[in-house]
């Protein structure tokens, strides 16, 4: 059993690592009460997905996808890089809007703890 699992594990360890990081981020998003921590969780989640994409582009013996003079060189897949460049910008934008919201929430309520917010809303 171990013998069959282990090679698989090693063959795809990058993906499994990405999954673990994703789960950490997702857990932080759901379970953490602090709004900033939620956004950090979101960022971890997104970064893990980037890792997942990027590592899928790798090729054994591949080099960066910039044309070299050596015709025998093997290039890694450039497309995931492009996608992730876009996705990073999206993630940054989302984070910016989220943080702006947190600032406004802090101004309005004086706290950014979820349970305190819920308590204050219940009182109103």
């Amino acid at each position, binding site marked *: 059993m171990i013998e069959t699992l282990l090679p698989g594990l090693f063959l795809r360890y990058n993906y499994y690592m990405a999954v673990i990081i994703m789960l950490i981020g997702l857990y932080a998003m759901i*379970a953490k009460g602090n709004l900033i921590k939620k956004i950090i969780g979101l960022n971890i989640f997104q970064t893990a997905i980037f890792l997942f994409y990027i590592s899928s582009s790798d090729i054994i013996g591949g080099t960066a996808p910039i044309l070299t003079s050596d015709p025998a060189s093997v290039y890694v897949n450039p497309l995931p890089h492009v996608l992730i460049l876009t996705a990073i910008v999206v993630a940054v934008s989302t984070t910016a809007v989220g943080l702006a919201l947190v600032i406004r929430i802090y101004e309005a309520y004086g706290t950014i703890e979820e349970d305190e917010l819920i308590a204050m809303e219940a009182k109103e």
Partner: protein
Amino acid sequence: MKIWALVSVLLIGVLLLWAEGDIPAFGDPMAPSYNYVADRYISDAHNDTATKNMVTAILADYRGYDTLGELTVIFTAGVAVLLLLRRGGRL
């Protein structure tokens, strides 16, 4: 709450781990993602766009429209932050 968070995260974790079972191995040159669309980018990018950097070629040309979308996202976020944080001024 935290228990539920843990349970749902674990469920999704199981799903993810199950999903990765059939994925091509890390660095596998036979992976379909490497041999279909990416193929042309690597072989023709220089001819098509006169750019040595394939990432740039795709970003600015093949999938340049995505980049326009990306810029729109930044623009949106900028106006959104403006809308949220700015008081006074002309906008």
